[in-house]
């Protein structure tokens, strides 16, 4: 019984594609997607028009590799589709990991893959080729680390942002924002009311939460309410004991507060009624949920809020309850605000020294953390404690354009943060091109033809970005590559690269994390793809011609 004749309960059968024509079709699928992406790589960003599912509406104009890959959901015939989907999956992994670099990954992948297919067609062993590819690609990574430098200075920030988004006004705004607030900050991207790119620096600390008291905040849709001289009760308790709320209310009034913000896990109907009866325009009361989903994060966040406001958090874990509340557990802020989805505090009355100490400890913990997710969480906490937040306003016309611009801005912000964290490389493909020098010393020590060819493939992949830029710019790739290598890295870093596109290309930088992710995914993807010997795919079910 062969694979192709296995019966399936739902009537589907599998097909197997494994001969030379099928593999060539698989390759064509890969090349099709790579060809789509090349025009948008630069130096002058091209555009790919997506006609859409019906082809009857105006085409969507795409300018980044990730979106192009995402839009390409199927091509015909099926075996070619397998190739395209293989590359698509790889590119989406790159995008998910670092938010950028899909075009670089596609170009490097395609260049190495073509050469790899040529080598296998000439009789080289795919498995050996794969082994040598993976082994020698580490030289490139070492060289990239050597080239990596910290991102510093506003001009460099703007250059990196420009490389990532291709929009001068947006790059300038993002550079201003991150030059001001740094990496440990909250930056929100929102549609501009004035239809222009801009930014505002905020001075408050704010958290995502939801309103527990829909009745009290009725009329808040789309707005936020400002609170002054605000008492704050910080907890993760279920606020279902009227006795506790009465104690909190009494304490707030005794201490001269003009408003009250309650933070808890939930609010019972009975307590909601109590709050509604006591809330007024002269003394507004609001209840918000304890921020963060996981218990450990909730405790950390409660402690942060308590430090800012000078409160003592009432935690379930410590057995806090209605009878344990004391008047001094309340915190205070000069100003606060609530909306349906967030609340913010400003000028907390917590002890300055305690806040400073907490920030200091958090900075040390952050410096010593290697876990990516934990790092993000700590960075967010630090941004709130130090009140480093900003809003980036983006322009646009229609809702669709605004959404596209928002995605572009968020992606660029992510690239900038990565670069601030991990450093930058010379852009415009120069960093990878320079790595080809790190391959040369190993050429003399090859042990078999597959190793020599693997080094050739790596070199080809490293040259591919500059080659593509030259081709897109109408220049001779060979000449540009030679010129770039002759200039050397130090000159390239201090002077513009040899390409001379329309527009300002000085100071082109790439994020170290993005380039290394693109390179690693491309190499491992090629190593995998070259060893694919057959493709199994479901056939469409037979459609009955009679009822």
């Amino acid at each position: 019984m062969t694979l192709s004749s296995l019966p399936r309960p739902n009537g589907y059968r599998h097909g197997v594609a494994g001969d030379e024509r099928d593999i060539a079709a698989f390759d064509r699928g890969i090349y099709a997607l790579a060809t789509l992406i090349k025009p948008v790589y630069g130096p002058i960003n091209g555009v790919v028009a997506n006609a859409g599912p019906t082809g009857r509406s105006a085409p969507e104009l795409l300018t980044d590799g990730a979106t192009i890959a995402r839009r390409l959901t199927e091509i015909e015939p099926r075996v070619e589709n397998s190739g395209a989907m293989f590359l698509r999956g790889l590119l989406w992994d790159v995008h998910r990991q670092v938010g950028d670099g899909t075009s670089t990954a596609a170009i490097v992948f395609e260049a190495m893959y073509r050469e790899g297919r040529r080598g296998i067609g000439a009789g080289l062993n795919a498995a050996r080729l794969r082994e040598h590819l993976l082994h020698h690609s580490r030289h490139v990574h070492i060289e990239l680390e050597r080239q990596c430098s910290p991102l510093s200075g506003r001009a460099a920030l703007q250059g990196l942002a420009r490389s990532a988004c291709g929009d001068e006004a947006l790059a300038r705004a993002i550079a201003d924002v991150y030059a001001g607030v740094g990496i440990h900050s909250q930056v929100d991207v929102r549609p501009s009311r004035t239809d222009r790119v801009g930014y505002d620096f905020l001075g408050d600390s704010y958290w995502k939460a939801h309103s527990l008291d829909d009745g009290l905040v009725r009329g808040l849709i789309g707005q936020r309410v400002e609170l002054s001289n605000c008492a704050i009760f910080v907890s993760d308790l279920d606020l279902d004991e009227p006795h506790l709320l009465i104690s909190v209310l009494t304490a707030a009034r005794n201490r001269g507060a003009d408003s009250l913000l309650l933070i808890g896990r939930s609010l019972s109907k009975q307590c909601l009624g109590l709050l509604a009866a006591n809330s007024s325009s002269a003394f507004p009361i609001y209840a918000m949920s304890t921020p963060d989903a996981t218990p450990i994060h909730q405790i950390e966040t409660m402690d942060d809020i308590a430090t800012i406001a000078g409160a003592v958090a009432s935690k379930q874990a410590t057995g806090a309850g209605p009878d344990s509340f004391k008047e001094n557990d309340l915190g205070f802020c000069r100003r606060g605000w609530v909306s349906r989805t967030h609340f913010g505090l400003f000028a907390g009355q917590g002890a300055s020294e305690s806040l400073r100490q907490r920030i200091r400890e958090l900075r040390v913990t952050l410096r010593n953390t290697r876990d990516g997710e934990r790092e993000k969480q700590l960075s967010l906490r630090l941004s709130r404690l130090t009140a480093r937040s900003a809003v980036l306003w983006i322009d646009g016309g229609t809702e669709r354009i605004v959404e596209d611009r928002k995605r572009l801005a968020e992606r660029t912000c992510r690239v900038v943060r990565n670069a601030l964290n991990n450093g930058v490389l010379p852009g415009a493909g120069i960093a990878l091109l320079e790595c080809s020098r790190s391959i040369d010393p190993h050429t003399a020590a090859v042990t078999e033809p597959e190793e020599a060819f693997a080094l050739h493939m790596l070199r080809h992949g490293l040259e591919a970005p500059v080659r593509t830029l030259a081709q897109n710019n109408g220049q001779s790739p060979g000449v540009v590559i030679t010129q770039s290598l002759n200039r050397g890295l130090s000159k390239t870093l201090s002077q513009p690269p040899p390409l001379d596109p329309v527009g300002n290309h000085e100071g082109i930088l790439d994020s170290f994390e993005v380039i290394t992710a693109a390179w690693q995914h491309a190499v491992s993807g090629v190593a995998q793809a070259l060893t694919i010997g057959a493709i199994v795919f479901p056939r469409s079910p037979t459609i009955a011609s009679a009822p």
Partner: protein
Amino acid sequence: MTSQLGDTVFDLAVGRHTDGGLVILAACQNGVFISVDMAETWSGLWLEGMATAIAASPNFASDGVIIAGVYGGIIQSDDAGASWAFRSLDDPRSLIASVSIRTSNGSSPLMLAGSVDDGLYRSVDWGVTWRPSNCGAYIPRITSVLAGNGQLSLAGTDVGLFVSTNDGLTWDDELAGEIDAEVTAVAMEDNLILIGTALDGVYAKCMNPNQTWYQLADSALVGAISAIATVPDSDGSIRVVTVGNTHAQQYRLNVERHSPPVHLLRTDVLPTPAVTSTVLPSGATVLAVAADTQGSILPFSIDLESLSSAHLD
């Protein structure tokens, strides 16, 4: 000669008249007062409430600009105190601890106000509008501000210093390196930052190249520092004159500026403990004006050349 204002003095400022004469301004419990005869006599300029901070424009002789922090906002005069305009701040209950003006010589105009509980405020349109500006300035209790030189602005707090490189839009407590002290006075000369503290004297730091803080010797003996003046010397060194609670001191920082040695040139005892003071470099001397708890105001000069300080009569 000391004069008795008979009022609690919160802050002092000095400026120069068009005729070169000195003007002393006092922010007091009962308003803003001015003396044009070296504190012999005083006139009320604005008497509508308490004023807690005051600054005169560096170009006071030509623009006559004075700003003062009052309860709930800033009052500003553009005619040497003849008339005043009130600008409300964001929170009507802000108490202002310090104000500073930078004129537009080579950089855009900037005014900063630091409040007791509500952080920092900033104006870039000559005081017409003031906006809160606390991004990164997470300690809202501001003790002293300096609008700066177009490259750096400074804000002292009860636990340290914030520095801004974008005219007060955002602030950073790590840029200058952490310093754990209640900052009571700030000053700057080119790339050198100086802070006076409540208990630990005066610290200095060079920002370019970025060095660590160093303490000016014996500066902690004089009590809370209320004013710092810097006078560059022709050989590249800097004279630093500080006024504390009980003493005035004069230092000479080395040519390199960014590390010791720092020479303590002179220490002089103040006739009465000063609660606030201000200083104004004036050629070969530094004019200092100090106020005590009784509302007595004492102007005196510190001679940089002869290392003697003399009281003016």
